[in-house]
């Protein structure tokens, strides 16, 4: 009896996995939706709509590192567990959304009639965004996928200058000395090699965002990455499937002609 139950569950699991693998069957997010995160740890319990966080607006203004290292937001949606009390004490959203640097985050006390709650707690509401995606991104260089913006190029040409230091939160550091670029041999014959640029990554991420949590091995060739694992959200896939340009942009990484 127990065995058959186990078997049934196993079959169901297999079916689920088979369904999960065909990602293209699902709708791809539109440019303004790419990198969208919905947070509902406490919102609905407190009688508010879940928070809709769009990465595009914040990443145009701040580095990934500032929020994910200095402020301490986890890389998995919902796992930070941001509470209104945390914000009020000046942490997480409240590190900036304090009424001085930017509009104040929602308070545990009664919200004054400023109407700012809706600016973040906006899931399912018809909220007119303060920043219109099209207007905001109009002049930025185009990218093929994701937000439809080439963020790397935008930063390099100075169209955006993401802030990497927040007074009172960030630690004053010496400038970073990035490691050299290196190439990774593709496993498939004829596939161009990957050129990995530390320089391009550290602009946004510093060091500790990727090491050692996402990439443990440093010795070249020690860790073997497979596209299957990356596609499942490991390694490069931590960012390059949800916020940074997505994995269907093959030639953004596979760029070095095979010798």
């Amino acid at each position: 009896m127990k065995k058959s139950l186990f078997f049934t569950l196993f079959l169901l699991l297999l079916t689920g996995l088979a369904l999960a693998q065909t990602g293209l069957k699902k709708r791809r997010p539109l440019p303004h939706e790419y990198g969208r995160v919905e947070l509902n740890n406490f919102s609905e319990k407190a009688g508010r709509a879940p928070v809709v966080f769009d990465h595009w607006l914040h990443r145009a203004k701040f580095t990934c590192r500032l929020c994910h290292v200095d402020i301490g937001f986890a890389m998995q949606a919902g796992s930070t567990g941001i509470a209104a009390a945390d914000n009020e004490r000046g942490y997480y959203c409240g590190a900036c959304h304090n009424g001085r640097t930017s509009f104040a985050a929602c308070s545990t006390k009664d919200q004054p009639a400023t109407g700012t709650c809706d600016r973040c707690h906006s899931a399912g509401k018809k909220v007119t965004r303060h920043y219109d995606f099209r207007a905001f991104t109009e002049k930025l260089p185009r990218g093929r996928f994701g937000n439809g913006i080439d963020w790397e190029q935008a930063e390099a040409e100075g169209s955006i200058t993401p802030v990497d230091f927040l007074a009172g939160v960030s630690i004053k550091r010496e400038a970073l000395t990035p490691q050299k670029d290196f190439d990774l041999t593709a496993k498939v014959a004829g596939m161009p090699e990957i050129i990995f640029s530390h320089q391009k990554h550290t602009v946004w991420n510093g060091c500790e965002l990727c090491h050692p949590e996402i990439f443990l091995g440093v010795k070249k060739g020690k860790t073997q990455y497979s596209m299957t694992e990356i596609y499942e959200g490991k390694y490069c896939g931590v960012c390059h499937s949800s916020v940074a340009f997505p994995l269907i942009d093959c030639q953004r990484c596979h760029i070095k002609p095979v010798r």
Partner: protein
Amino acid sequence: MTSKKALFILPLFLLAPGLLFANDKIPPPEKLGLVVLGNNARQAGLAPVVFDHWLHRATFTCRLCHIDIGFAMQAGETGIRASLNSQGYYCGACHDGEKRFGGKTIFAACEEEGESSAGKQCNRCHSQGKEDAREIRFQDVAGKLPRTTGNSIDWEKAEADGLVKPVDFLEGVSQKRDSLQLQADFSIEAQTSWASDVIFSHKKHAVWNGCEVCHPAIYASTKAGTVKYSMFQIYEGESCGVCHSKVAFSLFICDKCHKNKVQ
């Protein structure tokens, strides 16, 4: 029957209808790739959209629509709305009443309620139950194209012979990219002794799909031999079955893929 047996058989029963209805025969050529989209049409008081792949694939690559424009590969999943079309997404990427193709202005997609009744344009897509409103008929397109088993259009041959020249770049939507060197054709060993091995040609597939339609969403790994395919999964719409039988030639035309002689 003991409950033990029942538990074992139940999942099989659950799967069976899917298997039976998935691909029971080779559809008539004009019905292959027919998709009915009724997500939001009924709500807006319009007939569901009947989309025939044959019309669009004669002029555009699969990649252009499913990657650059971003239509999902599962009917109804994209959630196309009039408001999105009018912003230039999905159908509205071309159907904006301004873009020109083949010497003609492409008619505009329906606008949101109110203006939708102006003229017969709506019927050109929202045509379920009123097929007479169609301007281009199957024979107009398929008449001159080569056919294969089951009278299906042989798209591969049509493209190779230059009878169709699918457009792969849409100004304002597509982005220029470096081309990738294609992997050579390879064979996939059949798992049975009675079927020939499959010869897979990247070249034939890339003409229509580039890299991105298949990788990494359908085939995450590109390393030959990493993934084992079963015909059951393929019948259920996985791997090759995402396109073959639905839009690309039917899985029932076995020898189109299983063509390497058994040694």
